């Protein structure tokens, strides 16, 4: 879809205002910018310097999402890590208009922002950000209402599978058997007793134009899906799998690797849905054993206790869940990977090329 003239003007105005180039103008070598970041040929919605932990999957995912979405957006952010580490007053890491109200109302606040923009005849896109707690659990009703009323909002859930901000408590998104501080393993329990809620199917049952899952291990996939959603007039939803080194118990340097294992094992399938139907999936060439994914994280350590028959049982259970995903979504494929054309526009991302 070609952006219309007023949209181009608008983006140019925003770019000029924020001192960003879109890559078309190279910095003058005689007068190099003092701050290297100023020379970055792209728009950043979420700046560096915030207070996320090392290796935070959510921080990286939020940067990728805002980069792909561009500057003509407004964000409604649920309470959670993302809100806390980006805006300790009087600092803020956001370069786009951003509001945080409460834990469970990001979708409803976004609905109001969208209604206001509609009333004002503006085309600015509204994004809503929430963690899995704010999306799967406490904010679910507001999200369902927003989707049903067909607000033109892109809701992004950064899924790190527990209440990390309050100290790693189980959520509706925590995988089966995972250890959290409210689902600790012990003599009588093997971690979380219930399954991870199949949120994407529930979202999809609202028959919205577009809903997809993606992972911070696949930046190109995130960008493509964000851009796809940005072009749609209506409610869209992205579930971004984002490891939390602190909560999952892994080294901060392994975030991407672990997120990739979740996808390659079939435990976190990357799928796209339109109007309630699965339209595309990211294929898996060689499914990785789920145990490889589990072994890398302290939250599943009890599943590798020697001489505990329950451990083996739970591992088999999780493998069965992954196998089920591979089967129902048809993830297994032997065909060659499609060409990744993502690099073609990265020098201009956030600029007019989008």
């Amino acid at each position, binding site marked *: 879809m070609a952006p219309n003239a007023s949209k181009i003007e608008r983006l140019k105005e925003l770019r000029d205002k924020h001192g960003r180039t879109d890559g078309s103008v190279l910095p003058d070598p005689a007068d190099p910018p003092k701050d290297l970041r100023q020379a970055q040929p792209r728009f950043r919605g979420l700046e560096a310097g915030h207070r996320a932990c090392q290796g935070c999957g959510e921080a990286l995912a939020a940067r990728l999402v805002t980069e792909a979405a561009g500057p003509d957006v407004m964000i409604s952010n649920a309470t959670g890590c993302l809100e806390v580490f980006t805006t300790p007053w009087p600092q803020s890491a956001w370069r786009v208009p951003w*509001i945080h*109200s409460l834990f469970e109302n990001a979708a409803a606040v976004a609905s109001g922002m969208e209604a206001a923009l509609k009333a004002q005849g503006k085309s600015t896109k509204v994004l809503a950000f929430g963690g899995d707690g704010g999306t799967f659990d406490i904010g679910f009703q507001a999200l369902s209402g927003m989707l049903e009323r067909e607000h033109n909002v892109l809701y992004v859930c950064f899924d790190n599978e527990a209440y990390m901000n309050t100290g790693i408590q189980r959520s509706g998104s925590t995988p089966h058997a995972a250890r959290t501080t409210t689902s600790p393993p012990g003599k009588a329990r093997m971690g979380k007793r219930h399954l991870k809620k199949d949120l994407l199917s529930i979202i999809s049952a609202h028959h919205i134009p577009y809903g997809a899952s993606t992972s911070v291990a696949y930046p190109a996939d995130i960008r493509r899906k964000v851009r796809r959603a940005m072009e749609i007039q209506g409610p869209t939803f992205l579930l971004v799998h984002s490891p939390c080194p602190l909560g999952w118990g892994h080294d901060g340097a392994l975030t991407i690797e672990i997120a990739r294992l979740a996808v390659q094992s079939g435990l976190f399938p990357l799928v796209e849905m339109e109007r309630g139907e699965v339209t595309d999936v990211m294929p898996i060439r060689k499914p990785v054993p789920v145990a490889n994914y589990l072994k890398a994280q302290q939250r599943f350590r009890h599943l590798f206790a020697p001489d505990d028959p329950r451990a083996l049982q739970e591992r088999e259970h999780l493998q069965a869940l992954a196998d089920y995903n591979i089967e129902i979504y048809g993830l297994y494929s032997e065909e060659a990977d499609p060409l990744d054309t993502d690099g073609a526009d990265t020098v201009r991302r956030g600029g007019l090329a989008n």
Partner: protein
Amino acid sequence: MRQALEGSLAVAKAVALCRPGVVAAYPITPQTHIVENISKLVADGDLETELVSVESEFSAASVVLGAAAAGSRAYTASSSQGIMLMAEVLFNIAGLRVPMVLTCANRAIGAPLNIWNDQSDSMAMRDSGWIQLYCADNQEAVDSLIQAYRISERTELPVMVCMDGFILTHTLEVIDIPEQDKVDRYLPPFAFDRRLDPSDPISLGALVTPEFFSEVKHSQHAAMQKALPDIVDADKEFKKLFGRDCGGLLAEHGDEEATVAILTLGSIYGTLRAGMEAHKSRKKVKLIHLRCFRPFPEEVLMAALDGVKDLIVVERALSPGLGGIVGTEIRAVLSTARKPPRVHNVAIGLGGRDVPLDMFSRLLEALKNGSIAEFSVFDADLSRLPEEDR
């Protein structure tokens, strides 16, 4: 133009006159007729607004917050359980200093379930940081709503306009609906400095640590107190354009030399006024309508009580385990007065219990014979209770 209108329809028309960009609401008795009438105005093309019919009061309040933050004038209305469900958002809106107006069609909070009028819902939001204006009749409900936008947008404080459920919302009265051009003159288009705008991005709702939190709360409190003259001014300016006012912070009726005063909030004021007209001796008695409950108009109230020896505070809510809410606050305020009146505090008309015309005489009679307690649910019939509950 003077018309016979149901209170809710009149309020809906007043909302339309204020040209809100976004209206969001969830139905609850007795607020329903307000949103139904707004929906009808929208359907008939008489009101151009984004009407968002949400899935809960919690979302209604959240939607108007988002809308106002994004730069549109916003309106919502609710009652009772709906106000309770909104509570978390209402505190949040006030803390964020986002201007908007909410009509509270006052209704009792359950349990026991009761859909009729008292003011326990808005009283429960006493400390939310919202300005609270109480309406004695439907004309005031209309006028206060229009004034509320002016107050809210000047002070960046949200305003709750409280009107008694059923007694006002469902009652037909002759009401003068202001002309659109005059309202436009009174109420300039909404311009919110801190609105979300990609041309000038701001972050609204940051995390505030103990290092700054006390200062934020101090300034919120100071802003509420500084709003008092704005509320008076909005009423004065309204009178200049429309020829009537709501009494500013409080209205008085009766003998200026009164030694006995009865203070109340909301529609009971009208009932007591009518009761006063019918009473044989009205000398040395006056009625006070506390229109503005938050911010609390301490000075004006002190002045109104000058020379009063006995004050009966009549309210439609209570704080179980303490007694009256308004009465307790007035006692606190009067503690610094030179010659404070004796304060007698009664809760009447709870959960829609009828307040008859002779209530005025009964209150004065109880005062005269000394049977009025420091606090009582005045119209409760204790003989209907088991001995141990009396």
